[in-house]
């Protein structure tokens, strides 16, 4: 199947897809290109033991959504891998792998109260401690 047909279908995910959950290690950087497009970039940290740091770039609406994320926010990112290459200060070409995200979602934990509510419901306690003796 020619790639053109694949591009706009979910099948393009087969070719190049990455999905990561991580926390922002710094506030996001928002810029505007010469043509007026909004681009937002940040780095997320995945994993606690032996963490992986992944630079993320988002465009347009997703960039707008990410612009007010704070350091430490947990996000789910889905997109494709892209090599970003540029000439460093000493003229050497640097290339770095990053994710161009087509989807960024806030990953919010359940609030403490909701957790307690669930934990203290009788049904849940039975599952933890075994059924009540009558």
């Amino acid at each position, binding site marked *: 199947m020619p790639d053109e047909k694949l*591009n706009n279908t979910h099948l393009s995910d087969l070719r190049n897809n990455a999905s990561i959950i991580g926390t922002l290690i710094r506030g996001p950087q928002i810029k505007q290109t010469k043509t007026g497009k909004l681009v937002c970039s940040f780095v997320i940290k995945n994993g606690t033991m032996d963490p992986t*740091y992944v630079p993320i770039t988002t465009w347009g609406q997703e960039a707008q959504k990410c612009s007010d994320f704070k350091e430490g926010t947990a996000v789910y990112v889905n997109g494709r891998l892209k090599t970003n290459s540029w000439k460093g200060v000493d003229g050497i070409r640097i290339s770095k792998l990053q994710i161009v995200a087509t989807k960024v979602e806030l990953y919010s934990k359940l609030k403490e109260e909701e957790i307690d509510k669930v934990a203290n419901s009788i049904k849940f306690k039975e599952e933890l401690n075994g059924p009540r003796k009558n």
Partner: protein
Amino acid sequence: MDQEKTKLTYRIPEQNKVCLVGRVTKDPELRRTGTGKAVCSFDVAVSRRIKDTVTGQWRDADPTFVPIVVWNDQAERCKERLLKGFPVHIEGRLQSNNWKAPDGTNRSRLEVIASRVQFLSVIKKEFGEIAKETDDTTESKQEVVETEEDSYEEIPF
């Protein structure tokens, strides 16, 4: 009634999943760690077609080069089976690889640690038929799948 309060905390899942299809850029290298574990590394060029906004024509976007690392038995099979230009399907996770360069600076790069490598290779049979064989390096299961011919673009090198 039981007054005991069970305190639960939730953890954020550390999801990290990558899926790629591309071509091997150079013959893979097989090395052994100090403990004798086999590790195979190669780069995969992933390309996609985009519509040029100016001309309206479809063209190849710049390919993305992704370093892949494979371990143990899978590594040995990759070394046996893969050569420059061969198409592969990779499933794995992104991992930061940190090392100290000879000049003392800290270097780091993102790699894909492959949990699964499928060889999407073409084998020409004697009678001139082209049979496609997909080999999976996960478990020892081998499937021979007949698929219709698909055309991969020529890699630009």
